[in-house]
């Protein structure tokens, strides 16, 4: 029997990354602006197509703002008998491909729409045909927009912003919200596309510590039992998230994890110590996303190190030892090992990312040797993570 224990949570789902809170403290002005830009949608949607850029750093609420706005305006349109759809697409999730992005949009209306046998261009026309037939209007949000520009350049954005030129006298159907971290990314677009996009920019500033306190307090009320999270704890989380670049996602993730630690120890309250434990586990996780961005041989090299540390109960390894481990991994994966010089470069990359630490020891018999250690992630976890990534890459 699992003993009955007192969880600090009231509703953990309110801390999930997919949860969009009904109000977003300290984004009221930005929300008003967004509503203003799209107010025509509730009166004369056929007359106009809007383009808005939302720009801001990691965790400044870009996705949440846009999704909250979308859900609200769709609700309002419905009450007025308007056929308005809000479609939120993460461009990274669709590998920056216009085709996959449009396929997602089409499948909102026709869930089993085939994926083969036509081009992105044709798919765009199909999308418009569907919207015309259903007399529907769409706000299409292209989240992590950089990925689309990177993959496809100006072309798709040009197409999406110039739809009406080949649809003379037909109603406007598609408005765009493009979300990105840095407005620089649109500079690579052709001048006319750029100017259409840049006229309406909403900038989200990093949250201050006080703003983060309000955001966290709101979420505490939704997700935790009364008195389970003290002001001290909230303040510490806000402090940490502020130093992480005013990142609200970091704050909420920290809050959730700290709650998990409190439950694991059956404390009945989330203490600052729970927050400190949570922080160290989050750093390990951010590292996981760094892992995904490593090149094949950087991954193989790191896998070699992970295996070395797993098999040897030691804190440090020499260059020679990790190179040997890497050679074995290369053999296993059937690839030619890279040279010593290249491996040196990989070491720089890995240490710059903080995944490994290098130090120089002068006590070795052959003079100075470079020693390597894994400061944060347990070796078996690193190995598992890398093996998974490598499998994905080859599969």
């Amino acid at each position, binding site marked *: 029997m699992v003993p009955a224990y007192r969880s600090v949570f009231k509703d953990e789902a309110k801390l999930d990354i997919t949860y969009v809170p009904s109000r977003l403290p300290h984004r009221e002005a930005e929300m008003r602006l967004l509503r203003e830009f799209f107010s025509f949608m509730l009166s004369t949607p056929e007359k106009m197509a809007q383009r808005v850029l939302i720009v801001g750093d990691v965790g400044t609420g870009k996705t949440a703002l846009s999704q909250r706005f979308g859900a609200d305006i769709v609700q309002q349109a419905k009450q007025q008998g308007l056929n308005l759809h809000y479609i939120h697409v993460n461009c990274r999730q669709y590998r920056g491909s216009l085709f996959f992005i449009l396929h997602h949009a089409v499948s909102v209306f026709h869930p089993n729409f*085939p994926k083969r046998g036509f081009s992105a261009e044709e798919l765009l026309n199909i999308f418009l045909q569907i919207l015309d037939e259903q007399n529907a209007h769409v706000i299409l949000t292209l989240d992590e927009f950089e990925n689309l520009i990177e993959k496809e350049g100006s072309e798709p954005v040009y197409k999406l912003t110039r739809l009406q030129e080949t649809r003379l006298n037909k109603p406007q159907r598609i408005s765009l919200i493009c979300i990105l971290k840095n407005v620089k990314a649109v500079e690579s677009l052709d001048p006319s596309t750029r100017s259409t996009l840049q006229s309406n920019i909403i900038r989200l500033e990093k949250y201050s510590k006080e703003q983060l306190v309000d955001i966290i307090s709101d979420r505490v009320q939704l997700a935790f039992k009364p008195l389970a999270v003290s002001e001290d704890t909230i303040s510490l989380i806000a402090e940490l998230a502020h130093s992480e670049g005013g990142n609200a996602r970091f704050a909420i993730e920290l809050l959730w994890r700290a709650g998990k630690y409190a439950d694991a120890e059956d404390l009945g309250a989330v203490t600052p110590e729970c927050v400190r434990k949570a922080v160290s586990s989050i750093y390990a996780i951010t590292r996981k996303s760094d892992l995904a961005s490593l090149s094949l041989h950087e991954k193989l090299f790191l896998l070699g190190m992970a295996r070395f540390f797993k098999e040897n109960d030691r804190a440090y390894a020499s260059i020679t030892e990790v190179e040997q481990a890497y050679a074995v991994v290369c053999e296993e994966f059937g690839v030619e090992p890279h040279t010593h010089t290249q491996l040196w470069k990989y070491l720089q990359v890995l240490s710059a990312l903080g995944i490994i630490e290098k130090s120089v020891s002068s006590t070795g018999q052959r003079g100075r040797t470079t020693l390597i250690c894994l400061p944060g992630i347990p070796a078996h976890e690193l190995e598992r993570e890398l093996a998974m990534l490598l499998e994905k890459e080859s599969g």
Partner: protein
Amino acid sequence: MLIMVNMQIETVLGNKLRIKILKILSKIRELNVTEIARRLGANHKTTMKHLKILENEGILQHKRFGRIRLYRFNENSVKAKAIQTLLETWENAENIR
């Protein structure tokens, strides 16, 4: 297009592939011809033939998007409704057994 006289129920439903098509569409709601053919394990021509028969009987309808045709049950047909009910009831009974 060929104008066909409506068929008797034993003719319309007396064919394995047509029943299979109806089963697929009652589960998935809407599907393109190539995918229906793939699930039937039949070629395109045969699949089209059966789809046309079912459409001619007013049981299915289709929509065209460029080269793509999406087939589904005809929403305005009582026959289509009855067949869907039959298939669903059958399915549920099988699951209970």
